């Protein structure tokens, strides 16, 4: 594996900028000085950094990385460049959970409802896993879950109060801003977990790209890999969706952005690159969100992600169309 210092530096820079810049001008000199000398601290500034900016930046970074990795994982597993973490129907499950909680007025915080929804779908997949003999079956299953969920959500919406409807719509827009520091740290922990798992399984994933039968004859235990992918995807997606809402675009787009710059790489390199690119894209998009906030325009995160991401993916596909034709 080649370490890519430039990519990691870019990620670090995006993170530092995200924390450093904002509406309130933080007196960084005094704040950082106080860390070493124990001097006088501007309480307001310290609170902003610790309770607002740090959790937000950490959540953006970790979610971007996690979704990028899940995108890679899904695209490899289904051998389909248009697969993304959403294809298993787990995000839809989260939407349904929140829709039920908010639109029916249950006393459950949105993030908890999303987590429950995600895990119910995961459980369904787990129960059916033995019958899903091929990735394609799983794909169709996810698609059907999505259809069913959006139908149920529409039914719920038709009889919901305007207030509840607004809450639900806002949740659907996605945000990195609602995470507490402990939720952010949990995401960072998951980042470490998924990263280690991906590195460990990089060779299996490489073999898997050669074909399902061939990979098995090369020693990839298909059902075990299948189970691990389902469990990890469900766990990660459940957590990210409950903390940030249903983030649609990052998972699909990040691997394409990475492959645009580094087409000829196996999974071990891709894990590092996609991890860094995912974080950068998420931080960048959230930067735009915060900028529009400062102009009192309040663009939703999902809209920014799509506006930034769609042209990028289109450009990538346009330039490399020979590869997927």
């Amino acid at each position, binding site marked *: 594996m080649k370490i890519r210092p430039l990519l990691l530096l870019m990620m670090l820079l995006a993170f530092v900028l995200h924390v450093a810049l904002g509406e309130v001008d933080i007196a960084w000199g005094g704040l950082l000085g106080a860390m070493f000398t124990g001097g006088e601290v501007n309480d307001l500034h310290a609170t902003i950094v610790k309770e607002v900016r740090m959790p937000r930046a950490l959540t953006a970074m970790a979610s971007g990385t996690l979704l990028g990795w899940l995108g890679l994982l899904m695209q490899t597993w289904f051998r389909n460049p248009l697969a993304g973490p959403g294809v298993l129907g787990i995000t839809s499950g989260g939407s349904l959970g929140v829709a039920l909680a908010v639109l029916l007025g249950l006393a459950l915080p949105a993030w908890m409802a999303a987590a429950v929804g995600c895990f119910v779908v995961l459980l369904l997949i787990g129960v059916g896993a033995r019958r899903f003999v091929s990735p394609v079956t799983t794909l169709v299953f996810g698609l059907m879950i999505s259809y069913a969920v959006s139908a149920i959500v529409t039914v719920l919406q038709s009889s919901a109060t305007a207030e509840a409807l607004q809450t639900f719509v806002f949740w659907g827009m996605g945000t990195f801003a609602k995470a507490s520091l402990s939720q952010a740290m949990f995401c960072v922990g998951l980042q470490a977990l998924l990263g280690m798992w991906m590195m460990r399984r990089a060779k299996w994933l*490489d073999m898997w*790209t*050669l*074909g399902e039968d061939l990979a*098995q*004859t*090369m020693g990839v235990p298909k059902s075990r890999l299948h189970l691990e992918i389902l469990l990890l995807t469900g766990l990660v997606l459940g957590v990210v969706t409950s903390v940030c809402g249903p983030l649609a675009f990052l998972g699909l787009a990040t691997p394409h952005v990475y492959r645009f710059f580094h087409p*000829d790489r*196996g999974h071990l390199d891709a894990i590092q690159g996609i991890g860094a690119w995912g974080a950068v894209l998420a931080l960048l998009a959230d930067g735009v969100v915060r900028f529009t906030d400062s102009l009192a325009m309040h663009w939703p995160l999902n809209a920014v992600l799509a506006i930034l991401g769609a042209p990028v993916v289109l450009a990538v596909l346009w330039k490399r169309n020979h590869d997927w034709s």
Partner: protein
Amino acid sequence: MNLVLNDLEVGHMHPLTAPLTRSFGAGGMHVVLGANGAGKTTLLRTVLGVQSPLKGEVVLKTETNVLRANDISTWGKHVAFVPSMPPKHVGLTVAEVLSLSGPWEEAVSYHPQLEPWLNRRLSTLSDGQAQQVMAARAMLQSKDWLMLDEPTAFLDIRGQRHLWEMLTTHLNRGGSVMLATHDLRGMHRWMHEAPADITALSSIHQLSTQGLSPLAYDASLDALEAALG
């Protein structure tokens, strides 16, 4: 090691052929012919351990040792697979693909035609080139048996010839080959040009609902066509 089918029934739910009992000698080229749907691919997948037999078993045998397909990690060192279509959309380079199964230097030393492609992505090669890479990879994985499922189906004449030559190399190094094919002409020519000590260990079988029926390895092209038609 000899490849032995013991009362083997292959298929999905229903057996495709009568139970197969046969031993394929180590060091030979064993060709399985048969109409589409006769079960050639299913037989290969069963031998590879990707699919479970409906009945019976596949074993590798020497005088002192018996290996079974259920121990997949050991089995993979003795039986490797070359599918008919080389994979598409693979981001790995040729060297990286080879390295999944062993040192690429070894593959290049036996198949020097691979050398110029080492740093190219597998998906940028032609089907004929990619198939040679896939065969070389399988030979790194197993020095023993190689299972090929219509490996020349998508190749032009030159690609076909290269592939047959690679199989000769594998056999000369003490390996064994089982091959399902419709390429009668290529197979017939190979049987006539290969070293006599290898063809003496080789066999041609026709797979049908009755099972595996042997044909003479030095049968004429007309005789082969007649048997299959």
